[in-house]
């Protein structure tokens, strides 16, 4: 009898453990599913928002000045940051390339390394990541504040469609100003690399330029511009979306701003991978 008893206890203990583990596992699955379906719902909302903005595309021609104003505002506000960051990215990649190449690869190819890295990846991606923090968060904060202070409602009541007057100009400006900023960034990075290679690494300008032109592909520039446009759209869309969904008060606006940056950064890296995967 005692044996029986013991086996029964151990059996039920095992069952209990399994049960508990199963319960935990199921709960974990449920939690994951909940999180996932929530995320999927949000993606759906974002896509819907994008479509609703794009539906207003014809209105661009009614007020092109609104888009121009945003274009200039985003461009000008981002430039100082882009200048400093791009210059140093060029410098760092030159120094790193020299260190990695030392003894294996002739310094002829320093320019090649800098140029490839900058045009293919660091130019568009780092510019976009930085602008997610500079531009996307500002849009989220502005739209969030306008929502909080009922300015968006006031626009709706006056039949001034916020998507037409606020979202569309920002989206178009983002899509078209990012490539321009990336070109500036690429150029400055290459200049940064050049200054370091000639002054510090004692490589002649001619060698650096030879490296730049070697393996240079216009196709790389094309994909880089496409990336820039997509990233510009992502940053603005995330900023606008999170602004619209901001919680109440200063805290809500701050959080919206933060969420827009996190979401933009993640999307930028994911989409970067997808574009590279398709293009190469």
């Amino acid at each position, binding site marked *: 009898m005692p044996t029986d008893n013991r086996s029964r206890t151990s059996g039920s203990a095992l069952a209990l453990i399994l049960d508990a583990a199963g319960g935990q596992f199921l709960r974990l699955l449920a939690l994951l599913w909940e999180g996932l379906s929530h995320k999927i719902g949000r993606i759906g909302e974002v896509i819907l928002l994008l479509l609703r903005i794009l539906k207003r595309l014809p209105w661009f021609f009614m007020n092109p000045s609104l888009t121009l104003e945003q274009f200039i505002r985003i461009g000008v506000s981002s430039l100082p940051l882009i200048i400093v960051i791009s210059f140093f990215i060029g410098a760092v990649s030159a120094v790193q390339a020299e260190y990695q190449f030392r003894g294996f690869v002739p310094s002829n190819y320093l320019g090649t390394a800098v140029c490839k890295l900058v045009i293919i990846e660091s130019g568009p991606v780092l510019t976009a990541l930085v602008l997610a923090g500079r531009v996307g968060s500002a849009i989220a904060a502005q739209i969030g504040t306008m929502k909080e*202070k009922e*300015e968006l409602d*006031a626009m709706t009541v*006056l039949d*001034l469609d916020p998507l037409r007057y606020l979202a569309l100009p920002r989206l178009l400006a983002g899509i078209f100003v990012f490539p321009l900023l990336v070109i500036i960034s690429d150029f400055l990075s290459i200049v940064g690399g050049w200054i370091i290679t000639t002054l510090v690494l004692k490589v002649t300008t001619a060698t650096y330029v030879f490296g730049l032109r070697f393996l240079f592909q216009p196709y790389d520039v094309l994909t880089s511009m496409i990336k820039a446009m997509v990233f510009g759209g992502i940053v603005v869309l995330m900023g606008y979306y999170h602004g619209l969904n901001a919680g109440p008060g200063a805290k809500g606006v701050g959080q919206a701003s933060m969420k827009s940056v996190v979401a933009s950064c993640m999307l930028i890296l994911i989409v970067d991978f997808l574009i590279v995967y398709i293009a190469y």
Partner: protein
Amino acid sequence: MNNDHLIELRHLQKSFGPQKVLRDVVLEIRKGETMVIIGTSGGGKSVILKHCIGLLQPDDGEVVVDGKVISSKNKIDVKTIRKRMGMLFQGAALFDSMNVGENIKFAVREHEKQHSEADLDRIVAETLHMINLNPDFRFKMPSELSGGMKKRLGLARAIALKPEILLYDEPTTGLDPITSDVINDLIIDMQVKLGATNIVVTHDMVSAYKIADRIAMLLDGRIIFVGTPEETRATSNPYVQQFINGQRKLLAEAD
């Protein structure tokens, strides 16, 4: 349906999460009248106004404006009706990134393309005059205005398009008695001279008695009383008496 009624709120119910704000709001507003809605703070008066102009949709019930159900999913109806309506928000809701003049001009410029910039400037000057604001203020930014001035600018922006139906959320709150009276006269003028229908939410009983054709009282998510100013003064309804006399306790409960 009675054709006299320009706006009908039919058994509106509205909750925010667990909080039931409107339980069963029934109210009819006649064409060309000034309806004043009174009620305790946080009772849902602003929520009612937002239903009237389609900014909020009821959980249950209907909002009918000029025979059209605007609380339905049909966006077209809401948009056409909205063109005939104007609203002063409780917090003014000015466009912070635009100066005073632009705040007034923006919608007029977009909707009435026939105006030249000079026309628009004239409209701004006239509207500022109507609300007793100095025209020199048109270059100031909203952040540079006092609370009462913001309120008046919000009103200016709403009336610049000359809507037929005007919703005012506490138009005189925070104004001195003299400016309040200017606003009262303006609301009356909108009705008498332009034939507008006014719905005014206010706590200011002096203003309510002066402008109202009828006064409605909201309590616990229901309209519990509707009557002319005389009827309101004379009513034996204890809740209305309590409110208009500003007593903390119901008369019945006192001593």
